């Protein structure tokens, strides 16, 4: 039986990705130009204004994005190279989305608790370790980080209700 990560159906082609990224670049360049124009993008009597360099930076981004867009469209017509296959994409998503949730967790329950839980769950679900081992690794990393930052280096990191209940 084929494992799910070996699934090699192409999800998206390289050309499509090229087009998407070029379009994003264009949008970003346009945004930069817009804001710089608002600030003043000309060359005043005492040198360039605040928006001068960013404006032309934005302009160059837009121009190169257009070129890349055209190249992408032409490539799309000729070759169909796959950017990523379904299996690997699933693997990437397995790391990326939990990581996003982890970052959200930092904001809610503080970095130490979130890290402990995140490491433990990662090990259980992706590494197939036992709950006991995973919990032990997660807890020791969380505790070590806590001692290192809060106690020794005295750098305050985001904390949640657990630390607060303990009086920090």
């Amino acid at each position, binding site marked *: 039986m084929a494992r799910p990560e070996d699934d090699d159906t192409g999800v998206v082609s390289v050309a499509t990705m090229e087009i998407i990224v070029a379009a994003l670049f264009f949008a970003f360049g346009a945004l930069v130009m817009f804001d710089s124009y608002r600030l003043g993008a000309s060359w005043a009597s005492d040198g360039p204004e605040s928006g001068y360099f960013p404006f032309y930076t934005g302009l160059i981004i837009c121009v190169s994005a257009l070129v890349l867009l055209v190249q992408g469209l032409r490539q799309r017509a000729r070759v169909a190279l796959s950017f990523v296959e379904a299996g690997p994409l699933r693997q990437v998503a397995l790391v990326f989305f939990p990581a996003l949730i982890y970052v959200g967790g930092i904001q809610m329950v503080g970095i130490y608790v979130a890290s402990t839980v995140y490491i433990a769950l990662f090990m259980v679900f992706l590494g197939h370790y036992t709950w006991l081992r995973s919990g032990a690794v997660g807890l020791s990393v969380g505790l070590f980080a806590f001692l290192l930052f809060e106690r020794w280096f005295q750098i305050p990191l985001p904390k949640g209700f657990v630390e607060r209940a303990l*009086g*920090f």
Partner: protein
Amino acid sequence: MEESIRCARSVHARPSLRRWVTALSTALVFSAAAGTTLAQAWEPTRTVEFIVPAGTGGGADQMARFIQGIIQKNNLMKQSLIVVNKGGGAGAEGFLEVKNAKGDPHKIVITLSNLFTTGLSTGTFDWTEFTPVSMMALDQFVLWVNAKSPAKSATEFIEQARAAGGKMRMGGTGARQEDQIITVSIERAAKVKFTYIPFKGGGEVATQLVGGHVDSTVNNPIEAVAQWRAGGLRPLCVFDDERMPYTARVTDTMSWNDIPTCREAGVPTDYVMLRGIFMPGGVTPAQRDYFVGLMRRVRETPEWKRFIAEGAFNPTALEGDAFVKWLTRAKEEHRGLMKEAGWVTK
């Protein structure tokens, strides 16, 4: 109470939850200390954050870390105090954090002139939104020129600037902040023009002057004293209403006290920079009084006195109403100067 519970369930529970815990612990302390006054009872219950609305290594940062060192060395506080730099957007970041921490007694902030300048130019905060604790000292500004400059006095310097017709280069730290405000004040007082060139830090400005890349600066004493003693710079006048009180020789021939005020040298301008401590708004008087007392004890240490003398600070320290009065006036002066220069956002 109901509001705090509701908020505690939402994602942004931190401030209200904290307030709730603080309220709870205050209540506990109150019941335990029934009979004694609350004012004596408050003490920090956890680590206090000391916010510096500027980058590491600058004047405010140095002073904050020095205060932290004094507190630690002399055991003035049971909980620890940690310095956190939040210098983004000319300090707006740090001040906004304090503004948003309304009612949190475990945060204090050290201010420089950006309490007024950044507040006015970005329109995002005002000193009345914070609780003033105390003024620790005032930082002086001195008009410096390169030792090779032909100008021996402020009057000669102004003559020279007038003759150059706006081409004299004045170096300073940052844009639309204290150094540029002073430059604009001189321009107004003496009816001259300068080309103001902003740099990132005070030390850099002093070196640019020694290297002859700018013609004059308004550095703080501490930023320029090393170059003065080495014979690279010449002080012309100090922007305060009286001379600095330090009479010990700094160079072979001069002490800080020998520098005339700009007013007596014929340039009627003065400007001093606040080095003060604030708390977030909405803290109790007892909480404020704790830090007022703490800072008073800091100022009594010999280390502090030495620091103040070496940096040639104006040793004025104010608390309570006198401080509030000073702040009100300083804000209006800044508003006036900045409005005229067109830097106020509204």
